């Protein structure tokens, strides 16, 4: 995101993340950060994206956690629901302390309702139990 100021007005430019196309979306904001105009987006996802991005930027965190007694030492996990962008590194650090017992299956919830925010870490891979 880049931003230009003109008195009380600001124009920010975002690259939309909703599809591979990556539209450059210009948003004009008024003195109270109200959205005055959105342009440059080729579909309605671009508008949705910047509205969300200005109010509450969210991202998906893909990472991995350790597995005990598994055929592999790690299982991949992710936050299927996008989480607040500013908390990604906190959750990443916390996920390094998590260890789950094998077997682990796709869809297993590894961490539920993190910090009471409804954020979940869910397994996206399989690890068998070592014999």
């Amino acid at each position: 995101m880049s931003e230009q100021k003109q008195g009380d007005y600001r124009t920010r430019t975002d690259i939309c993340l909703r599809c591979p196309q990556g539209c450059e979306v210009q948003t004009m904001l008024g003195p109270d950060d109200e959205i005055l105009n959105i342009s440059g987006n080729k579909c309605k996802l671009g508008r949705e994206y910047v509205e969300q991005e200005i109010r509450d930027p969210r991202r998906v965190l893909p990472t991995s956690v350790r597995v005990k007694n598994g055929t592999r030492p790690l299982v991949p996990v992710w936050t299927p629901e996008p989480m607040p962008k500013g908390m990604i590194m906190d959750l990443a650090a916390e996920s390094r302390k998590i260890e789950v017992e094998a077997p682990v299956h796709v869809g297993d919830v590894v961490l539920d309702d993190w910090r009471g925010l409804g954020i979940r870490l869910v397994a996206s891979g399989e690890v068998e139990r070592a014999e």
Partner: protein
Amino acid sequence: MDVNTTYDVIVIGGGPAGIAAAIEAYNENQGKVLVIERNDSLGGILPQCIHNGFGAINFGNDLPGPEYAHRYEMQLNELPVDVMLDTMVVDMTPELDIYTMSSEYGYQHFKPRAVVLAMGCRERTRAQIRLPGTRAAGIYTAGTAQRLVNIEGYMPGREIVVLGSGDIGMIMARRLTIEGAQVLGVMELLPFLTGLRRNYVQCLQDYNIPLHLSTTVSKIYGERRVEGIETVKVDEDLNHVPGTEEFIKCDTLVLSVGLIPENELSRKAGVQLDVRTNGPIVDSDMATNVPGIFAAGNVTAIYDLVDYVSKAGEVAGRSAARFARAQQAESHEGSRVVRLKPGANVGSIIPQQIYIDDLGDRDVYLSMRPNALLERMVKVELDDGGEEVMSFREQYARPAEMIIRKLKARDIEKLRASHGAELVANIS
């Protein structure tokens, strides 16, 4: 040694192309199908691609790589298809003799009725980009670094520089940052980003990782371990600009400098390769020049979306099963063959040929790799000696994104109405 001739179709490689090919080869004909995979599990590269961004087309869902692979593996497991893991194909002949090695089964000889090549690709290495400097530890390809971090659970280093702004390079820059490393920058030789723009935002900008365009690595320092690198700016002709050298202290260099289809076996079997794609020349059924050998996925050309790799695998699997059933190459007698050639702003195109009168209701995907960055509405056309045969519009053309067109009935009508033996694909 006994020859195992029981299989209708053998698929070499159990990644996304191979799994999809095996499923469709079985569904087409209910014959005997075998997948040979050298790794100890199926899925190819996907189990280590733990980021999301897979499956938008085939599942309507944004999935992590391992979950995408798992869904296909579940479909495969429901079918009576044989899978041999930890098994390496060591040789293959134009007569479809396949020789394999594995610690469990030993040396084996197969002779199926049809083969699907789905060996994927491998990464370009330091030697292939002629990167000078010492041979210190701490220089990894992005895929190796990804395997270490995501599968084995090791960090390749602490202070990291990435060379190459392709999607894998950017995704690894983010991944290493999330795991606590400091990524000092991503260097790109070309004057533009070579991966997707959204990855620039969500992998680099979000983590304050600088991107340096028209910049490359000119030296590597360090005896036992990398101690630093020298970067240099390049001009329009990609030559180093003297006086722009900068030293960066780091312990690791990650290379994301391109992928090459893996075709050693294809060559042994007499399969003809395209110098542009580095993969087999295929027709619209994904058939190679060798009767009974089909190919799909990154072995034919480098794709950017796995969804289309799976789709190409499906086409190859169905074609191989039909070949096995007929016990011979489909006769294209009476059908005109149209060769497709890349023209303006097109680096490569697959398939390279189409049997225009034999398409029936089969799926045909034209996949074109632009070799120029055109940030505006473009026209993609197939020309017959300068005359337009068919065309369509795209919002833009970027080297990072293959242009893929599933041919529609009216496209095929237009192709049939053309006269030339060769059509040239142009982007303007």
